[in-house]
């Protein structure tokens, strides 16, 4: 018995798939934002003069980078509520926290690389014209670091976007969740997974395209 492709089910469920994709983008975007804050703080901590701060930042990076995202998601969603009722969160909040923690570790590395690539002469020039340390950080180091970090920031956004598929494990209604649903309810196996894959790939391409344009603009300034 041959398998005949039939995309009718996919067309019927297309609105849900689009919503799932939108939720994926939303989750990735929020997590990137929170992750950037964590990453910036941890990156400045990792190059600070205080040994304790440096160790905490590097410990966080090493710990989280070597944990699978699924383990973090399961820990935050299933195990933390056992510690205190305060951690009894809804699925989306719980997933955003997990993904932000995960993103924070990778972004720390990104920003740290950006910080280390800031030329020494810039800081010395700032001191020479009498800027205070905080002003040097704010007006000189920060913008240069950001420009250094921009390409890897974009790549991280793409991988975060792909990691949002793991939210389906705790039943967040995103794209992979709906694809699984179509798969189990209608057995249109090939259609469901090829559509999901095409949507993911196309979105990744679009993000990469936008990022390249942004980078080109930034490089001109």
């Amino acid at each position, binding site marked *: 018995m041959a*398998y005949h492709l039939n995309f009718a089910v996919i067309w019927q469920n297309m609105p849900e798939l689009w919503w799932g994709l939108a939720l994926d983008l939303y989750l990735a975007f929020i997590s990137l934002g929170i992750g950037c804050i964590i990453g910036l703080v941890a990156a400045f901590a990792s190059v600070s003069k205080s040994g304790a701060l440096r160790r905490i930042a590097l410990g966080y990076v*090493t*710990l989280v*980078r*070597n*944990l*699978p*995202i*699924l*383990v*973090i998601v*399961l*820990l935050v969603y*299933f*195990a*933390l509520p*056992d*510690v205190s009722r305060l951690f009894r969160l809804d699925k989306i909040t719980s997933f955003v926290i997990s993904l932000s923690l995960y993103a924070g570790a990778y972004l720390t590395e990104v920003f740290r690389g950006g910080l280390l690539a800031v030329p020494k002469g810039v800081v010395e020039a700032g001191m020479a014209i009498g800027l205070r340390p905080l002003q040097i950080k704010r007006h000189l180091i920060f913008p240069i670091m950001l420009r250094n970090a921009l390409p890897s920031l974009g790549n991280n956004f793409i991988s975060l976007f*792909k*990691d*949002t*598929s*793991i939210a*389906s*494990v705790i039943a967040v209604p995103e794209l*992979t969740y709906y*694809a*699984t649903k179509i*798969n189990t309810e209608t057995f249109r*196996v*090939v259609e469901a*997974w*090829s559509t*999901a*894959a095409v949507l*993911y*790939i196309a979105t*990744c*391409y679009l993000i990469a395209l936008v990022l390249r344009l942004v980078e080109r603009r930034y490089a001109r300034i």
Partner: protein
Amino acid sequence: MNLAHVLLEIWLARFDILFGLGLTILVSFTAIVAGTILGISVGVALTYGAWPVRFIARVYVDILRGTPVLVLILASFYIPSVAHINLNALEAGIIALTLFCGSHVGEVIRGALQSIPKGQMEAAKSIGLTFRKTFVYVLMPQAIRQAIPTWTNAAVEIAKATTLLSIIGVPELILTTQQIIGRTFLSLPFYLMIAILYFLIDFAIERAGRYIDMRVSAAQGTVP
């Protein structure tokens, strides 16, 4: 929930945990080794292939790198049955992870091969080496050294991605532990335990990668 109780439950479940851990390590190892072999051929095809070969390799790499691993795993679990190929969850998972690893390592190798200065190839040609000899004696040794740090990251990613096989029902570390939690209701201690175990596995891979990098650099007389 006290410590003695938790330790007792862990002790009672020791064989299940060890089995899950063993399967996780086995799957990671298989996928990394097979994926690396595949990735090296893909990387060579991407860099030196004739255009049809290069095009096919590029499509393969872009499709696999643009899709989330979870979708790849689910697809390779469900789709082959349509073509009457019966794979069990473990086989489907290993295939998905190998293909995924191959695409990432392929890009890593391509990057490393392209970063070798052109003069190396020209020098090899001028002393009359064939392409095969050039590749084995001139290009590959340099590419490998370039690639080791990024390759290590890819290997850690694969080891981390094996957790997703629990979703299609491979009884690796996560699924086994979830079954134990279903029996004992000790979710916090057992999830913490697997977090520690995964950390150890991934940290070990990272350290091993760094060690190999150091040894290779030392053997080639350069410090990274």
